[in-house]
C-alpha cells in the first residue's frame, strides 16, 4: 500500500445521514385525521394536549429502557420498579412540605416539586446502580435469566415499597398553582399537562443534545450500533453502560414523580402497570432507538386519548392494534437499530 487514503478534511465531505421521514409524518397525519372524526375543534385541542402530556411522561420512562437495551442487549423488566420508587420517594419531600405545596405561590410550589424530583432522581439513580451491580451484571448475554431475574427484582422492590411506606395507597395532591385549567378559546387545557409537555420536551432536547453533540453521546450511539468495535477502539463499554443504566433509572424516577402527580394517587403497582405501555412504546419505536421511542410514546398516547373519546370500548385494545399495525408496516419498529 503506497497510497494512503486522504484524510477527511471537513465535515462537509462526509456523507450525511438521510433523515427517515415517513415515521415523522405519522403523528401529524394521525392528529389531522382525528380532527374531523372528533368534530369539535376545542375538544380536539384538549385531547391532543392530554395525549402529548401522557406521551411525554411515557417517553421519559421508556427512554432509559430502550437505550439500555440498545447498548447492552439487556431488557430490564424491573424498570417499572424505578417508576414506583421514584414516585414514592417524592412523597418524602412533598408530604412534609405540604404547606409549600398548598401555598398560593408558583415559586414555593416549584421549589417543593423541584426538591422532590431531585431527591427521586437521586434515589432511583442510586437504586439503578445497585440493581445493575447485583441483579443484572451476573446474567449478561442470557436473555431468559435476564427476564426472570429482573422480574424477581421488581417483585422484591415492589414489596419493599410496601414495607417502607405501608400497604395503602398514598394520595398526592397537585400543588395549588398547577391545578385548574387554562382556557384557550373554547379549549380547556389542564395546566399540569402543559408542565408535563414542557418537562418532556426539555428531557428530549437534553437527551438529543447529549447524544448528538457530546463525546459520551457519540460513544453511546456508536455502542448501540456496534459495541465490539467501540471496545476494540479502547473504550470501556461496560462503564458507559453503567452510566446509561443509572441515567435511565433516574429518568424513570422522574417519570414516576410526574406520573404520580398526574394520577394523584400512588400505588406500589403503578410502575408495573405502566410498564405494559412502555414495552409497547419501545417495540413500536424500534428496540434501542431513542427517536423511535419518542415518536412511539406520542403515538400510543394520542391514539389512546382519541379512541378513548371516540370509541371507549376499542380504547382498551387500541395500543395492541396500533402495535400490530406498526409492526405490519415496519416489522422491526419505526426506527430499527442496525445490528438487531
Amino acid at each position, binding site marked *: 500500500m503506497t497510497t494512503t487514503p486522504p484524510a477527511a478534511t471537513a465535515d462537509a465531505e462526509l456523507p450525511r445521514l438521510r433523515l427517515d421521514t415517513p415515521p415523522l409524518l405519522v403523528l401529524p397525519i394521525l392528529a389531522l385525521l382525528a380532527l374531523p372524526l372528533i368534530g369539535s375543534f376545542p375538544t380536539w385541542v384538549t385531547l391532543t394536549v392530554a395525549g402529548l402530556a401522557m406521551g411525554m411522561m411515557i417517553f421519559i420512562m421508556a427512554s432509559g429502557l430502550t437505550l439500555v437495551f440498545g447498548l447492552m442487549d439487556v431488557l430490564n423488566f424491573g424498570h417499572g420498579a424505578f417508576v414506583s420508587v421514584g414516585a414514592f420517594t417524592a412523597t418524602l419531600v412533598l408530604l412534609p412540605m405540604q404547606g409549600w405545596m398548598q401555598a398560593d405561590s408558583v415559586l414555593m410550589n416549584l421549589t417543593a416539586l423541584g426538591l422532590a424530583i431531585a431527591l427521586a432522581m437521586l434515589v432511583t439513580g442510586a437504586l439503578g446502580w445497585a440493581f445493575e451491580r447485583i441483579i443484572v451484571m451476573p*446474567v449478561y448475554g442470557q436473555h431468559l435469566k435476564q427476564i426472570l431475574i429482573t422480574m424477581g427484582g421488581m*417483585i422484591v422492590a415492589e*414489596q419493599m415499597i410496601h414495607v417502607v411506606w405501608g400497604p395503602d395507597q398514598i394520595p398526592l395532591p397537585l400543588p395549588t398553582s398547577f391545578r385548574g385549567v387554562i382556557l384557550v378559546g373554547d379549549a380547556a387545557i389542564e395546566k399540569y399537562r402543559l408542565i408535563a409537555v414542557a418537562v418532556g420536551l426539555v428531557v428530549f432536547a437534553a437527551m438529543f443534545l447529549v447524544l448528538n453533540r457530546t463525546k459520551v453521546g457519540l460513544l453511546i450511539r456508536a455502542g448501540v450500533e456496534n459495541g465490539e468495535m467501540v471496545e476494540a477502539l479502547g473504550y470501556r463499554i461496560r462503564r458507559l453502560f453503567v452510566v446509561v443504566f443509572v441515567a435511565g433509572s433516574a429518568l424513570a424516577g422522574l417519570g414516576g414523580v410526574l406520573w404520580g402527580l398526574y394520577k394523584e394517587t400512588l400505588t406500589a403497582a403503578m410502575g408495573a402497570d405502566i410498564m405494559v405501555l412502555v414495552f*409497547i412504546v419501545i417495540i413500536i419505536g424500534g428496540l434501542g432507538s431513542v427517536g423511535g421511542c419518542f415518536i412511539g410514546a406520542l403515538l400510543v398516547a394520542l391514539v389512546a386519548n382519541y379512541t378513548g373519546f371516540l370509541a371507549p370500548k376499542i380504547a382498551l385494545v387500541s395500543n395492541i392494534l396500533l402495535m400490530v399495525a406498526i409492526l405490519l408496516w415496519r416489522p422491526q419498529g419505526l426506527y430499527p437499530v442496525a445490528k438487531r
Partner: protein
Amino acid sequence: MILQRLLSGDFPRSRFLTALLLAVFTGLALAPFLFPGARALNVAATVCVFVVLVASYDLLLGYTGIVSFAHTMFYGIGAYGVGLSLHSVGPTWGAVFMGLTIALMLSLALALVIGLFSLRVKAIFYAMITLAVASAFAVLASQLSDFTGGEDGRTFGVPELLRPGFRLVEAEVFGTAINGKLITYYLVFCSALALFLLLLRVVNSPFGRVLQAIRENDFRAEALGYRTVVYRTLANCLSAVVATLAGALMALWLRYAGPQTTLSFTIMMDILLIVVIGGMGTLYGAVVGAALFILAQNYLQALMKQGSDALAAVPLLANLLHPDRWLLWLGVLFVLSVYFFPTGIVGKLRGKSK
C-alpha cells in the same frame, strides 16, 4: 412395566424426591379423608390445578426456553369459558362442554396467532408482546362487565352431581360424607393427574426432545432440519390448551370465575415463582413447587404473623415479617434460586443423588 409406561420412563431419579412426590401424591389422593375441613380441601384442589398450570408453563419456559406472560390469559379463558356458559345456559353438563369447547378454540386461535406473529423473533420480544396482550385481555375482561361480570366476576351453578348438597350414598365413609364437593374434588384430582401424565408423555417424546434442542441451541436445531417456528408454535398451543383445561377445572371447583382468581398478574408471578423455585425443565418441579408454594401461601402467613407480632416493638422489622409481605421473601428466594440453583429444588435433589 406399567409404572414405566405411566411415567413415560421419566423417573424422579432421587430417593428423597421420590419420597416427596409420593407424599404429595398420597396427600392429594386422600386429601378429603386425611385432612377434614373445607379449607384443607380447598388447598388440595388448588394444588392439583396449579400442578397442571405450572407444568404446562414449564413446557414453555423450561423445555422450550420461551418466556410467556400470557399464561394466565389462557387459564382465564378456560375459567371464563366454563363459567360464563354455565351462567347463561344453566347448570347442565352440556353447558360445561360447550363452554369448554369454545374456550379451547379461542385459546388455540390466540396461541396460534401470537405464536406465529412473534415467535419468529427473539425470546425477549415474545415476552413483551405476551405481556401487552395479556394485560389488554385482563382489562377487557374487567371492562365488559355486562358479559363477564366485571371486577366482581360471575358465580354460577354447577351440574347437580357436583353440588355440595348432592349425596351419592347416604352413609359416611371413614367419617367423610360422599357429597358433590367430594366428587368435584376427585374430578379435579383425576383430570389433573391425567393431564400431568400427558404432559410427561409429551416432554419425553421425540417432539419433547426437539423442544429441548431448540432451548439449548435453536440455530443448530434449525440446521438439523427442524422448523423451530413450527415447533415453538406447537409447544405454545399445547401449553395454552392445557392451561385452558386447568382454568376450567378451577372454575368448576370454585363455582366462580373472576379476574382476581384467574387473570391477575399476581397469578402469573406465582406461576413464574413456582416454576423457577420448583425447577425449570423438569415437570416434577411443578409438583414439588406448587405443593410447597400453595401450602406456604395458606399456612406460612400465619407463622409470619407470629413473628411479626413478636417483633412488634421493632418498627421496620415487624413490617418485613408482616403476613402480607411473604411475597417479598419469595421474591428474594426467586432471585437467589435463578443465580445459585437454576435447576430448582428438583435439580438440586437429583444432583445430590448422582
